[in-house]
């Protein structure tokens, strides 16, 4: 991740060194924003029912071209566990997730978009890590076999989003839209068995979400 951040910083530095004082929103080209996303469906994680799947995080975007902004983002979530049939999970169990990624957002020329205002589509690649945290009522913990519980499930995700972004009062950015996508590669290699089965159960399985963001132009 550090390496990715370094590369991104280098790209930005190169871009600023080679660009005039133009572009962006009347000269402002950096957006620091917070974003929340919710799943409109309530059963997104198989067998591990979430009461309400909500993700939240932050992102830093830079307008690099007339209709393009690129950014890095960090999201996190914490899903409450619930008892399902034959589940050995406890109701106080949680899955805590984090997600780091890169996003390229393109403002649609066909709809009159100019970064950072207008209708857009974006693609993002990210790394997500879901960590299982057993609650005090967990049967495995109680059963004395904590080694069966995996620490995390790590995946590479790809998403595509469609939305709209606006600027208010010259300094505030708001956006909203829908995002589709999911894991394209699972990093963890558990060689079968219960651990693998469990890892799959806590793996990232959010395929559709609605997001809202609020940020500042710097």
């Amino acid at each position, binding site marked *: 991740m550090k390496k990715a951040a370094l590369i991104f910083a280098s790209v930005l530095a190169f871009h600023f060194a080679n660009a*005039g004082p*133009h*572009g962006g*929103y*009347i*000269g402002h080209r950096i957006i620091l924003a917070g974003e929340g996303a919710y799943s*409109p*469906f309530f059963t997104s994680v198989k067998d591990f029912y979430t009461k309400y799947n909500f993700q939240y995080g932050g992102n830093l975007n830079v307008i690099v071209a*007339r209709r393009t902004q690129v950014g890095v983002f960090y999201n996190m979530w914490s899903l409450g566990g619930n008892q399902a049939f034959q589940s050995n999970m406890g109701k106080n169990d949680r899955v805590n997730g984090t997600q780091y990624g890169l996003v390229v957002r393109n403002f*649609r*020329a*066909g*709809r*009159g978009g*100019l970064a950072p*205002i*207008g*209708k857009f589509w974006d693609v993002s690649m990210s790394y997500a890590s879901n960590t299982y945290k057993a609650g005090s009522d967990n049967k495995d913990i109680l059963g004395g076999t904590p080694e069966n519980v995996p620490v995390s499930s790590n995946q590479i995700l790809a998403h595509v989003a469609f939305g*709209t972004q*606006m*600027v*208010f*009062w*010259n300094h505030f950015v708001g956006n*909203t839209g*829908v995002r589709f996508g999911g894991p394209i590669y699972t990093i963890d290699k558990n060689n079968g068995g219960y651990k693998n089965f469990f890892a799959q159960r806590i793996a990232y399985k959010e395929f*559709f979400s*609605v997001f809202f963001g609020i940020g500042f132009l710097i």
Partner: protein
Amino acid sequence: MLNLRKIILFSAFLVPLLLPAQQKPNMDNYQPPQSNGPLPPNFLISTVDKYEQDRQKIQQNQDKKMQKAEDDFYLQTNYSVDQMCFSGEVLVNDTMGQYVNRVADTLLWNDKETRKNISFYILRSPIVNAFTTDQGIIFVTVGLLTRLDNEAELAFVLGHEITHYKHHHVYIGYVEGVKMQQGMGQYEATTFENRYLKRHRYARSQESQADDEGFDMMVAAGYDPHAAIKAFDILALADYPFSDTTFNKSFFETNYLIFPSKYQPDTVKGIRPDNEDEDDDLATHPSTYKRRKAIIHKFNKLQDTTGALFKVSESMFWRVKAIARFEECSEHSQDQEFSEAMYSDYVMQSSYPDNYYLEKEMVRAMYASVIEKNKTLNLDDLMALFQSLFIIGGPDDRPVGEQGRLKGFVSKADATGWNIAALHYAWDVHKKYPDDPDISYWCTGLFRELTLKNKVRIGEFEKNDTEFVHFGNRILKDTAIVNHSKIATPAERYQLALDHMSKDSIDTYHYWQFAFIDDLKDSAFVAQFKEATVWADSVHLQDSLWYMQSTRAQDKSKGEIESDLSGPQGITKLVAVNPVYIAYIDHGDDGDQEVDVRNSLDGHSLLVDEMKKDAKMFNLDLTLLDESGLDTSSVDRFNDLSVASQWFAQRDNYTDHQVLPYSQEKMKALAQKYGTPYFMWSAYITYKGKRRGNLWRALSFLVTPLAPHIAYRMLTPHEDVYYIAIIYDVNTGYPVFVQKTQMSNQHENKSRLRLHVFDLFHQITEPKKKKK
């Protein structure tokens, strides 16, 4: 009733007999009118300031709805009047305006207070009209001045308009309209139809009052009251040209270019006044018949029916009328009414032959009509198609009047023949005035139209006089209808020969092939023809590409149209002409749109501020050629705005590869004056209306996970936003930068406007990228 009709008829014929002979002022060195002298205060105060001043008049102790109605009235009228004043169509203190104001001085000689509050301006429009505003500005159109026979008629018209002003008819009319809509006052407790009838009855009473007092005013000022009765002829014939001089196609013919007779309509319907006694229940004005009758009634009560036809100046009147008629030729072309322009010009040329201005305007109108005719599907074709589909044989579909005859001729003439006639005429005028760059430029355009659109090459014209004579003789001999030896001239024989050819033959036979027998002896003509041919051969590909580009632009109905004309331009100095910001409110299914004046004014103010700010940021030397920052000495700038506005209005009608059928020279002079050839026209337009399809949204709200988005959509109005900026190099007349953005179903806000202006200035100032 019958007696009255006789009197009216008698008066209509008698009064012309009493008229003085028309004077014919010298128009040899005629120059189109322009504004002069110090700009009046109306042009120096901003719309917002005028509105703020006017709203002080609103009485606070009346119904809130009426307070709002008055407030809206002052806002809308000030906005509309200012839009008109800075449209480029208004002349201030020009010869015509000076004369009209002097007549008004005479009318109001005993009412200095009223006179002080009224200003008269000339509106460049061929439409016959005069109208009053509550602000004391009275517009008189060029079209009206062309129809007048004497000063007394003008005095009656001005008296009518002054009465409207004195009694605040515009204001009262608006307030009555609001009361009618809301069923207040006299409109309470009645059906909408009755309210509507009452409202129009009230409007007609205002018109009658204006006629009544206008008549008294002119009589009191010593004008001949007969003229008031005659003035109604102008009204009754307002839809027809100012003259019905016989048209003959020979005007466009030469010894060697003769059109088939079938191109010219044989007969035309005579010009008749519109139905004067029409039912006026649903009209804001009483019928002309009733108005004339009321004036005759007053006239009959007069003790003394004598008076002066001219009080200010007879010679000035005739000069003003001649100026108006000269100007009307140009106005018709400006309004894309080329047949009307040619007919006005034709009529004036019968009085002023060899007049430089008229001949030049004729070339312009002919060239513009050639472009129109050479279009794949032109307006005439569309109209003919429409008539053939939906109008089944009217009882009398002959054209109306002599102007109708000219129109019929131009419409029936084939595109190639008409192009050749225009080129021949233009070349003759060019030879007379070789130093006029506009005429020379239009000749180039006509050569190009002929070679590119009509695909005619010089070889087809390489004929001689003997062949011409032989052709006529041969056809006549073949048809054996007449003894051709008795026909006097070869041209007459040729005409007869053409007319005896079958329809199919005439459609395929190139009757115009002898047209340039004389012109081809002129080496300059030959050189230009060949040059145009080379050009036409080289642009076939470009033309196809252009066509594809235009098709793509049409297909891509949303969003910015990308083309070679976008991207960095490296412009450092720019003139922005009258930037426009208009917010429309769409009232629904009937397509009724209204300008949201408050938002339009706010948006315009923001737009101009952003332009100034961004110009500074990008080191762009920006001149705003608009209504802002004018003072009394800014009349030159006002004229510049007028020239540029009219140029842009014309420029929008033509595609890129054509030579433009209007004067480039005035714009070139402006380019020199402002130190840059780059002039920008920009418009920011929003349409806000009711959102349709909410029922489906409400249903989908129940099943879809996108509830917040749908709720947002349901609660906000539908809005479309259009941003357009076009920069022309006015030395060439071609655009160098085009940005057209259409944002459907997106909300306009200040940030979006700011960003687009910023982006626009960013684009145009960024140095051009070197082509690899």
